[in-house]
């Protein structure tokens, strides 16, 4: 029995609606807000209508298309109904013709203030030492409302802070029960880690039995962290460990930056969303003291070479098709939990940053005459799942981990602030050579559709010797998070598909399960791909607070601009890639490639924390069996 049939909730699935369609004709309506007549689109709620007219209504639980439950009651406004003024949550109250609304009347201000005071009365207020200090939606609202003391005090919960995993910390004491984490995890990602537990004052938003995230089928994507308005969900910071490595004279610290970092780091320093700051990023890393500054885009090119060849090999053998991309560790873990029967189909390629790590400690060490044990690889990633991925036992050898530390975009920005580096004033720098040269194909790895586009181009070139025209995608069933296209490879039509956001992945996987034929499928765990990753900047400041996550496409556009601006646009043209095959790896899918650049997967089941009848032949031990084989 499938879940949808068993418990089809009343909520209409809104998965994948990342972009509002600007071309759609929308009916206009007129309403009066704060004695001003304003025009709004039909179907808008009062909060959005007011916002469009330049009136900011504070809100906490609202996240457009994702969480529209009207539960925090901070966005209350006065609405005239049948001549009486009633308080309504503006985020769920429809803006209708002739509606009369007051967003800042004395009553609204008083009640709104009470709501925030009540939230604060049960919130561990550690603002000065909090990771979200100055970037916290609750803090900002409290400040905007001028709350200087909290009238209502009483019992304050002392709940555990769960940090027994390498990726996400859950501090229940800072949770305001907005349920944005629950909504994004169940409605967008459809991983369903969180649900409200208990009731009344004891309500917590938690995984089943309040288990740590490492105990449940969490894919570590970090979308909940992006969604959290406070510091109840945060990445596990490893800034101090990186500082330590940098300070250690004995260590040779190599840093790599994921493709999307160059278009998102600027946001942390006030640049508009979608600003390309590659040059400043490189200089900043040098100033922090990294010995070499490389680009993950380079190994993205390498991944393309490996994966394109893997695709061709599988097409030849007609085996394990469709090939499923594996560069998104959140998606990989999703497959391990929910679609273990398709693990054979996953590309065996490690994700680019792991490939980088493996090569840094072999190829690079050899070239530079360094002791691999002394090399520390730091990865700047848009992603919390990469933190988990780096901790997988199979990602490395007995003597070293491929990647030692993974920093999110946010953590890097914090390091720069700690070091007193004025980002805006930095001159541009260039990546170090050897593992710093990348094609435009590597760059677009950072957004949805990039991997498949790059790999198909290379596969096309490898087989036909010609360049491919632009891929023409068709939206699958109207979900913008799901697309498919046809391309001719080796004289036969190949059906490719892309999905981003694991909710969309689920739809695609169910179609695969139902027997639909695809040849090559790219899946990114996060909506929008890495530009929407769980490690990317969060907007919770007074100057920049978002009520939706729709800004991601601006970042993707910036990656496309990088691609177009490059002379080098095909992975197979990358001289550094050519060189590494000549000097070290031999050819794609060689023995050495397989040993260093490829990996394997572990079925984990939907309930990893339980040994139930169904799961008796648990594959948990397989990882250990395989590691020695890999190392030998």
């Amino acid at each position, binding site marked *: 029995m499938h879940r949808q049939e068993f418990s089809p909730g*009343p909520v209409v699935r809104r998965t994948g609606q990342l972009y509002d369609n600007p071309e759609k004709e929308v009916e206009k309506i007129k309403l009066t807000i704060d004695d001003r007549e304003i025009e709004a689109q039909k179907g808008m709620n009062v909060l959005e209508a007011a916002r469009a007219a330049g009136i900011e209504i504070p809100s906490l639980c609202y996240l457009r298309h994702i969480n529209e439950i009207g539960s*925090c009651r901070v966005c209350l406004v006065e609405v005239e109904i049948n001549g009486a003024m009633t308080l309504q949550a503006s985020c769920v109250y429809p803006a209708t013709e002739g509606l009369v609304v007051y967003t800042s009347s004395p009553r609204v201000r008083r*009640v709104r203030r009470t709501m925030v005071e*009540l939230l604060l009365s049960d919130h561990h207020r550690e603002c000065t030492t909090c990771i979200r200090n100055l970037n916290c939606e609750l803090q900002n609202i409290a400040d905007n409302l001028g709350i200087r003391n909290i009238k209502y005090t009483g019992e304050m919960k002392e709940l555990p802070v769960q940090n027994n995993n390498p990726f996400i910390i859950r501090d229940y004491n800072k949770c305001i029960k907005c349920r944005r984490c629950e909504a994004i995890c169940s409605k967008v990602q459809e991983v369903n880690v969180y649900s409200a537990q208990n009731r*009344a*004052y004891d*309500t917590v938003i938690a995984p089943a039995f309040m288990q740590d995230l490492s105990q449940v089928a969490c894919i570590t994507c970090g979308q909940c962290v992006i969604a959290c308005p406070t510091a109840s969900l945060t990445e596990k910071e490893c800034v101090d460990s990186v500082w330590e490595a940098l300070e250690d004279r004995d260590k040779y610290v190599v840093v790599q930056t994921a493709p999307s970092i160059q278009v998102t780091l600027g946001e942390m320093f006030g640049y508009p969303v979608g600003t390309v700051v590659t040059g400043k990023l490189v200089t900043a890393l040098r100033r922090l003291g990294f010995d070499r500054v490389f680009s993950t885009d380079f190994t993205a090119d390498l991944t393309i070479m490996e994966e394109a060849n893997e695709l061709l090999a599988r097409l030849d053998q007609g085996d394990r098709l469709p090939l499923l991309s594996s560069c998104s560790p959140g998606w990989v873990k999703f497959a391990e939990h929910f679609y273990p029967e398709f693990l054979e189909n996953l590309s065996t390629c490690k994700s680019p940053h792991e490939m980088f790590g493996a090569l840094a400690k072999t190829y690079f060490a050899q070239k530079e005459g360094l002791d691999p044990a002394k090399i520390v690889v730091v990865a700047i990633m848009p992603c919390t799942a990469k933190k988990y991925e780096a901790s997988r036992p199979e990602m490395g050898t007995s003597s070293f981990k491929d990647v030692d530390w993974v920093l999110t975009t946010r953590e890097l920005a914090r390091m720069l602030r700690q070091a007193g580096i004025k980002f805006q004033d930095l001159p541009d720098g260039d990546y170090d050579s050897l593992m710093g040269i990348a094609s435009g194909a590597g760059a677009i790895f950072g957004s949805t559709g990039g991997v498949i586009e790059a790999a198909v181009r290379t596969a096309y070139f490898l087989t036909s010797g010609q360049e491919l025209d632009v891929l023409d995608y068709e939206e699958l069933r109207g979900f913008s998070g799901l697309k498919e296209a046809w391309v001719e490879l080796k004289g036969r039509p190949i059906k490719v598909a892309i999905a981003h956001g694991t909710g969309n992945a689920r739809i695609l996987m169910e179609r695969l399960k139902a027997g639909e034929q695809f040849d090559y499928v790219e899946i990114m765990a996060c909506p929008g791909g890495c530009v929407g990753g769980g490690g990317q900047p969060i907007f919770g400041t007074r100057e920049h607070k978002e009520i939706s996550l729709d800004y991601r496409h601006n970042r993707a556009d910036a990656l496309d601009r990088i691609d177009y601006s490059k002379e080098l646009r095909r992975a197979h043209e990358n001289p550094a890639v050519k060189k590494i095959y000549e000097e070290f790896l031999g050819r794609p899918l060689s023995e050495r490639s397989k040993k260093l650049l490829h990996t394997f997967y572990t079925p984990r089941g939907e309930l990893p924390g339980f040994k139930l009848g169904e799961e008796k032949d648990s594959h948990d031990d397989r990882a250990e069996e395989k590691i020695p084989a890999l190392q030998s």
Partner: protein
Amino acid sequence: MKVRSIDDLRSLKEKYYPLIKQRLGHRNGLGLTQVMVCSGTACTSSESREVHRKLEQELARCNLSSSVRVIRTGCFGFCQHGPIMMIHPGEILYCRVRPEDVREVVQHHLINGQLVDSLLYREINTGKKASSLENIHFFKAQERIVLQNCGVINPESIEEYIARDGYFSLADLILNKQPREIIEIINKSGLRGRGGAGFPAGKKWEMAAAQDVKPKYVVCNADEGDPGAFMDRSILEGDPHSVLEAMSIAAYCIGASQGYIYVRAEYPIAVERLENAINQAREVGLLGKGLFDTSFDFDIGLRFGAGAFVCGEETALLHSVMGQRGEPRPRPPYPAQEGLWGRPTLINNVETYANIPVIFRGGWEWYQGHGTATSKGTKVFSLAGKINNTGLIEVPMGTSLRTIIFDIGGGIAGGRQFKAVQTGGPSGGCIPEKYLDLPIDYESLKEIGSIMGSGGMIVMSEDNCMVDLARFYLEFTQDESCGRCTPCRVGTKRMLEIIKRITEGQGEMEDLELLEELAFDVRDASLCGLGQTAPNPVISTLRYFKDEYIAHVRDKVCPAGVCKELLTYQVDAEKCIACGLCAKACAVGAISGAPKQPYHINPEKCIKCASCVAKCPKKAILKGVGREVASSAQAGIFAGAGSQENRPAL
């Protein structure tokens, strides 16, 4: 047999009517005696099943099985005096019938034709014995329309319901009327939802009927969660088919083919009766495919509440019916637009549905002749608290509280003074004495700070502390909050903390202001009805009994002698015989004394456990401000129960 037409119903009615006729006080010429034994929850808990079993046994022993028939029936409403037994012909009512009384009933009444004197009801105030309903004030002042079948028919027999004209309306409407005509009749009848807010029922039906989406659903809200309210349970236990018939009519009107009854799993008898009724209706073809040989299909399933008060709120109920956490959601969209699985869903509560067949049987003109200008028909109330006749009653809208409490209810128990009556359960307010003569309907109750609610009515005497009562209700709603919205989740908690401070003598005068402000904000800002009404007990007691709050805060005294932290125990020097038993009983050594001297309680040490009170042979230990302990044993405590005073007995 299958019922396919009105004629089929008629022939069933003819067959069973003689039995019913006798129970209504007519001769049936059958030469049969019928013994009705109440099988409602209250009587069942006082062993009515055993009475029933013994009776069958005894009748068999005396060879009376053929001439005397024992019938289980629904609640008479006279719960305090259960188990209830009624014998026809003669309509003789026996109260508190124990299994050991059965032999006497058979011997005296059934064989010898004499009344069993000891089992007759005695009017509390006059001590007069009454043998039949007409002579008992409790029944005389009522007007039982919705409850007309309770206590008359066997709820486990669909034939008896049909004999009472059941399912005739359904047949007539399906065969002869258009949905909009039916809704028009309901509109004209003036029926308003009996679940709480009193939304016009016809409007709701109209809205659901107007939706152009299929499938649609009909839901019956039987999640009666108000502490102290049990009218829905009694209807389901005593007359389940009336609800099924009404739901079928509703389904026909709005175009639904599936219905759900959401019933509390804590009501096992009601669940059993419903399951039985649904099966019977299916068997005779009154539920299922093609009712009365038309194309109208309708079936009903049961869904269970598992202990959450908030599920009485309609959007929360929908989530619970779908097997989810019973959390409400903002409206609009209303359930009639988007309900179960996103489909239009009509929700009414049990009592509302139970009114529907009545309206069609009697006609809307007759129905709207009952009640007040804005509230038509009757209302069922459950009476509880410090009142002589607790139980279930039905009166026309507009009846005064005085009639209900002092006439039907027989006044305050133990001759104490009336202080207030709480209506509407935890969502309602406390009404003081000055409004006793107000005719009650939806509007009048709202005006004085309470609500009709589902019809719970708890009577308070001078021995009840209103602050403590507000605390009790708040504790309830705070615990039952679903935890979704801020004001209800955190606000009620903070309110409770303030009021607890007050009852424990830690309150400041500013707390009263703080409490009131917060109460209004929680009321205004909450997402659903639970949060919006949760402050009502606080707001209404602050409005009418502020002096009690002030006594708690400023004088650190609980005038009713309920709040333990504010009590002091003293020895009445006049009565004390210096026996020393109290000092021996005291676990903390707070009592000291010398021979022939009155003993003394040290208030610093006393933990107010009242062990001394129980041991004192002369009742010389006083509580509070000089009130006698013996009398204030009534205060918030039932004297005979496991009260402090009786504890040493265990």
